């Protein structure tokens, strides 16, 4: 199964080769969606973990035991449909084509599963219709 989680690394754990450990010890594949890592700072990773359900749970428990904060509620982009004017400006900066225009009606379409929450669409929107849920 697949699980999207947000991992927050305290300074102490920033040196840990996390993807390697997850693969080697738990047979879990790590797809990094978003990363914010710098030496000697709190790091943040949004990852999609793919593996057997028991091994996934074991991997999450192990990370928690390493003081890595595991959050299952991942950040999401929300579009206020009352404010959006379907101009489509956001579609040009979206790197994963989660935001597209319907080729016939030119209405904005948001495919949540493709979104990596890079947030580039937020400042691009001229009517401030896009935000994150936290």
């Amino acid at each position, binding site marked *: 199964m697949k699980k999207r989680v947000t991992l927050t690394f305290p300074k102490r754990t920033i040196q840990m080769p996390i993807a390697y450990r997850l693969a080697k010890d738990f047979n879990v594949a790590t797809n990094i969606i978003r990363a914010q890592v710098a030496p000697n700072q709190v790091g943040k990773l949004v990852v999609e973990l793919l593996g057997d359900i028991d091994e996934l749970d074991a991997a999450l428990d192990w990370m928690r035991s390493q003081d890595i904060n595991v959050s299952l509620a991942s950040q999401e982009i929300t579009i206020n449909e009352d404010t959006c*004017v379907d*101009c*489509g*400006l956001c*579609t*040009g900066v979206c790197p994963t084509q989660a935001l597209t225009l319907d*080729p016939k009606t*030119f209405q904005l379409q948001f495919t949540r599963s493709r979104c990596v929450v890079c947030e*580039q669409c937020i400042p691009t929107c001229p*009517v401030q219709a896009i935000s994150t849920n936290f």
Partner: protein
Amino acid sequence: MTLERTIAEINEKIQQQKAVVWTVGELKARVADVGITQAAQEVDVITTGSFEPVESTGAMINLGHTDPPIKVRQCWLDGVPAYAGLGAVDIYLGATATAQVEHSKHSETHLPGDLEREIRGNSSIPDRGGGHVIADLIAGQGIRLQATGYATDCYPRTSLEATISRDTINQFYLFNPRTLYQNFIVGVNGGEQLLYTYLGPLQPRLGNAVYSNAGAFSPLLNDPDLEVVGIGTKVFLGGGIGYMSWEGTQHFPRQKRLKNRTPIGPAATVALIGDAKQMSPDWVRGCYFKNYGPSMMLGIGVPFPVLNERVVANCAIADQDIVAPVMDFSIPRRVRPTFGLVTYAQLKSGQIEIEGKKVRTAPLASLYRSAQVAQTLKNWIKAGQFTLTEPVAPIPGDRDFLAQDRWGSKIDLG
């Protein structure tokens, strides 16, 4: 037999609710099926629409006199300055007006692009401006008014604070010196740093391309030589009724044109005027471009009476027959280098090719809402609520594009 109709005949049909009205999209589809001659026989009116940012827009407002009266010399609406160099309580609020921008004390030091912006923060540009205030007034909201003046025998009062709404002011009409741009440019960034422009963020190394015209659905590209519209043409403006009142600023009908008479870059513009008290927040929206400034998005619809086959032939134009120049915004000069011309069919496909590189395109005009404007105007005409007007004078066709320097003249598209 050649088809000839008059506006009077068409209006008679509209009043009897018998007029055949198509949106320009429906017209193009019908022409593809039955040809121009047949389509022209069938339809009386073609409607077009646009919904896009229009910077050269603003509202004329007469505040009404106070007791004792004041001659307003400086005026702010929700902190946004309005021009008051008119009659005592007449003001003009421009869509791009902002509260005072605070300049950073570091502004003399030079820092490279993004870093400079991060530290200095063009973010001191307020994200709320005149366009937002106008849209709020149209939506029926109360707006804080602050005004000052000097005392005279006629107007002894020197300051005023009040809350106004669209129902407590006398005249409230939009006057838009430049709208309905007949074609525009495509913006890209060939440089190394992210740019914030009036077309939104342009990503470095040709990261994205932004176009801001609806191409074959854009009103004035369906009447390339402005033969049908003119001064006095009645239009849909912000959900109310407006009129073409003059040529627009930067009106440049002498732009180079293709054989089909559509211009290869920015060309004709028109000035519009219309009662803002009739308008609706659906079609008038404040907007803001990050690190560039606020503006306003406005829905405008233009009807074309089918006076003859030529009107239909002009409206049958397709996206692959209209081009726009791709301009590099990384050179901050009046004449920017161009990467050549692309068609609107390419732009709307979501991808163009520049120097062998595939570049994502995105529109800035809302093509969806533009179509809705055309549809709304069609419904009004069909219901007999909107009749057409005869222009009282043509929009001039002989304007040059003068620049404020000694050596340049026209936009050079290379």
